[in-house]
């Protein structure tokens, strides 16, 4: 049901040029208080009736001066702040930061700590994708998938609570290792979760993925070509859905990801063109399965040993700079750390995947309907905490 927008706009323009039709474009403020902008995103939409001519994203409402604060606290004190950037995937954020610091310090992390990091990062990836699944359904008007997603996410949060004492902002990966070991009970919980998740995953597809209305709403909408995706710096599921099989866990493995066997799901254009909203959604759903595989392998081969390296009380990193990209649920996350052999960093610059992913919105939101803007922004799966920092 392709909408011939070009033709329609030209017809409307012809009519108004003849003076037969008085039309006026409306400027609509979608957000910062709006149910489906995933936080405090403001989209200024220029519309002709329901047709969107332009959509300008305005960000910064959640700016908390992360980079400025990071210059004024010690390296260890930065970790809790990183939790609060992408609050849906705190583990992955903190992991990216501590890996960067460790790389500059050139310290070896115990294998057990590396494996535990992989486990929690993948669990958090699943939790994040479950939120993406639920909120995407919500954006398209299906309420129930949201609670389905949150039901399984709850299990992950309980595991994290056991591990770190917190349910959202964990402060679990530490410089040199992790905060707490995975004991037998937590391992059993994780295995039980894997079982549950494998059972309920087909339910999600029956409820939302294969729903005809859902497919009609998301297929062929917001198509991003691989060329555009690369040029706009899209990463993560958005890039992979465009058909670029690039995953940092494979390309530049960190934290012993090279030891695990998993696939990179890419957009195949199953329901429409490659890298429409449905493809981006489906890549996330497939990544849940791949993450389950990784967690299972990591649990099976979890090495014995210590979980935290002994480090001096005051960390002074050698002068230099480091950028270590990590695969966040939303894309490539990395911290560019510049040190001048002081207890505090000279500069910490963060590459926020959502920030780059969002920048393409105006490009793909031209000539779509207002309802599609919601579908497109939802399919990019942005977190404003990370965009605004």
């Amino acid at each position: 049901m392709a909408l011939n927008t070009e033709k329609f706009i030209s017809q409307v323009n012809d009519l108004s040029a003849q003076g037969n039709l008085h039309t006026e474009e409306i400027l609509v403020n979608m957000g910062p208080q709006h149910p489906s902008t995933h936080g405090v995103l403001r989209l200024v939409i220029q519309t002709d009736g329901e047709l969107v001519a332009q959509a300008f994203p305005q960000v910064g409402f959640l700016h908390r001066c992360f980079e400025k604060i990071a210059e004024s606290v010690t390296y260890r004190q930065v970790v809790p702040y990183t939790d609060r950037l992408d609050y849906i995937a705190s583990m992955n954020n903190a992991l990216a930061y501590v890996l960067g610091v460790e790389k500059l310090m050139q310290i070896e992390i115990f294998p057990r700590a590396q494996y535990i990091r992989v486990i929690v990062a993948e669990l958090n990836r699943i939790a994040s994708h479950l939120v993406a699944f639920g909120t995407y359904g919500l954006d398209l008007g299906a309420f129930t998938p949201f609670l389905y997603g949150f039901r399984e996410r709850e299990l992950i949060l309980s595991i994290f609570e056991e591990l770190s004492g917190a349910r959202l902002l964990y402060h679990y990966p530490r410089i040199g290792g992790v905060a707490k070991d995975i004991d037998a009970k937590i391992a059993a919980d994780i295995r039980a979760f894997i079982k549950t998740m494998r059972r309920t995953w087909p339910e999600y597809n029956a409820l939302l993925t294969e729903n005809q209305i859902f497919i009609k709403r998301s297929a062929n909408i917001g198509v991003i070509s691989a060329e555009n995706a690369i040029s706009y710096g899209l990463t993560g599921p958005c890039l992979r859905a465009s058909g670029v099989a690039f995953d940092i866990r494979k390309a530049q493995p960190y934290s012993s990801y090279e030891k695990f066997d998993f696939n990179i799901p890419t957009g195949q254009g199953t329901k429409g063109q490659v890298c429409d909203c449905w493809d981006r959604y489906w890549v996330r759903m497939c990544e849940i399965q791949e993450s389950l595989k990784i967690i299972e392998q990591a649990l099976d081969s979890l090495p014995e040993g210590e979980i935290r390296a002994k480090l001096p009380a005051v960390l002074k990193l050698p002068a230099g700079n480091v950028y270590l990209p990590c695969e966040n649920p939303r894309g490539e996350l990395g911290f560019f750390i510049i040190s001048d052999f002081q207890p505090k960093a000279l500069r910490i610059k963060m590459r926020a995947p959502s920030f780059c992913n969002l920048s393409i919105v105006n490009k793909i939101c031209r000539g779509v309907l207002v309802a599609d803007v919601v579908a497109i922004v939802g399919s990019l799966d942005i977190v404003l905490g990370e965009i605004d920092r």
Partner: protein
Amino acid sequence: MEFTQLWDKLNKRFPERLTLATESGDKQIQVKVDDLIAVVDYIKNDSALAFNFLRLISAVDTGKEFSCVYHFYSYQHAHGLILTVSLNRANPTLPSLSSRYATADWLERECYDMMGFNFLEHPELRRILLPHDWDGYPLRKDYQQPAEYHGTKH
């Protein structure tokens, strides 16, 4: 391509124009502001380099000098490159890459917002994270925090 090969290739193409940063950590290649566009065009379009992905633009203030750091990556060849540009502290001006990499648009706006770099030929160089009427560039080392903003004291 390994970094040494990269360096050789670039050095051959731009003799005497590039310098290798010697600090520990990631290896950086220092480019003069005037050469930036030529170097970027070369590394983007040369088929053996093909740096089609601009990861990150970071504005850095070391307290003494300004520099702008570009992280590039190539999906075809799976190699990365870091270019740095030293800038004049009084007038940090450099060319924009937004016509070459669409992602540079927002990344450069952020550099402008936080550090006050002036990117020439940028389509709309205005603040992105901070309010449009904010005073100063917060990530500069000599930045003085304003006592109040629209009646709000900190």
